[in-house]
């Protein structure tokens, strides 16, 4: 039974925005990580979304959104002179992650606002359903 129309689509958007915020959290948390699993400094992750098509996933709402991919931002990070650092090379330079906190804060605000916009859709869809139930009162 689908009493609140379109709410599954909004639900998928909320999931997607939450994933975006998770990735921002990961980027900010690793802003100083000079050694990842591959021994290289952390690369900033970028999320891209895609529209859900009919039958793209079982039970997925058509017209909704999902995370298409989480890819590394390939731009090189800054080199910082820090000879005391354990990951410093022979010249005392340390390759830092390419995380720019200003970008991450903008992404953070953008995902929060996106989430809020979708919550507003949920709220209004619910209000519409409730109002429809008062027909005849």
């Amino acid at each position, binding site marked *: 039974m689908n009493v609140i129309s379109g709410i599954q689509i*909004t*639900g998928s958007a909320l999931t997607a925005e939450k994933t975006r915020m998770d990735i921002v959290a990961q980027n900010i948390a690793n802003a100083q990580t000079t050694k990842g699993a591959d021994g290289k400094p952390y690369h900033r992750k970028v999320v891209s979304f895609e529209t859900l098509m009919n039958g793209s996933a079982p039970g997925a709402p058509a017209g909704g959104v999902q995370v298409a991919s989480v890819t590394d931002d390939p731009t090189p990070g800054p080199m910082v002179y820090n000879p005391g650092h354990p990951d410093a090379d022979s010249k005392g330079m340390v390759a830092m992650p390419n995380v720019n906190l200003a970008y991450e804060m903008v992404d953070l605000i953008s995902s929060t606002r996106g989430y809020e916009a979708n919550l507003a859709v*949920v709220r209004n869809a*619910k209000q519409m359903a*409730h109002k429809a*139930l008062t027909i005849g009162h």
Partner: protein
Amino acid sequence: MSVIASLTSLFNRPPTGEIDLSNLQQSVAGLSKGSAAGGIDLTNLQESSPVITEALANAGATQSAGSRKSFSDILEKLVGEVDGSIKAADAEKAKVLSGESTNLHQAMIAMQEAGVAFSMMVEVRNKLVESYQEIMRMQV
């Protein structure tokens, strides 16, 4: 009048997630049978009133030529679906609370959906009781 009694008690109970609607389903099933003491046979009513039949058809009842769906079947289906959505919301809530899922919004959406579905069922029940009382007041 067990149907009305159970429907009324259901209405008076707060719409928490722990409502067991199976009782109601049983009483709804008994609705069309019509008990001797003041029962009302809605199957006959449906046959006698073209408006209700049309309304039932519009309500999404798949009526094939041979098998006619009775009003109680549709009502039972409605109650079953509302029960299902409440149970789904419960499952989502349990998933979030046990840490299996972090999708808080899915649980909240499922709970809101269950709440709206429940309100709709209550509205249907109100209309049903209203029309029953209307019929009982009828002069013969």
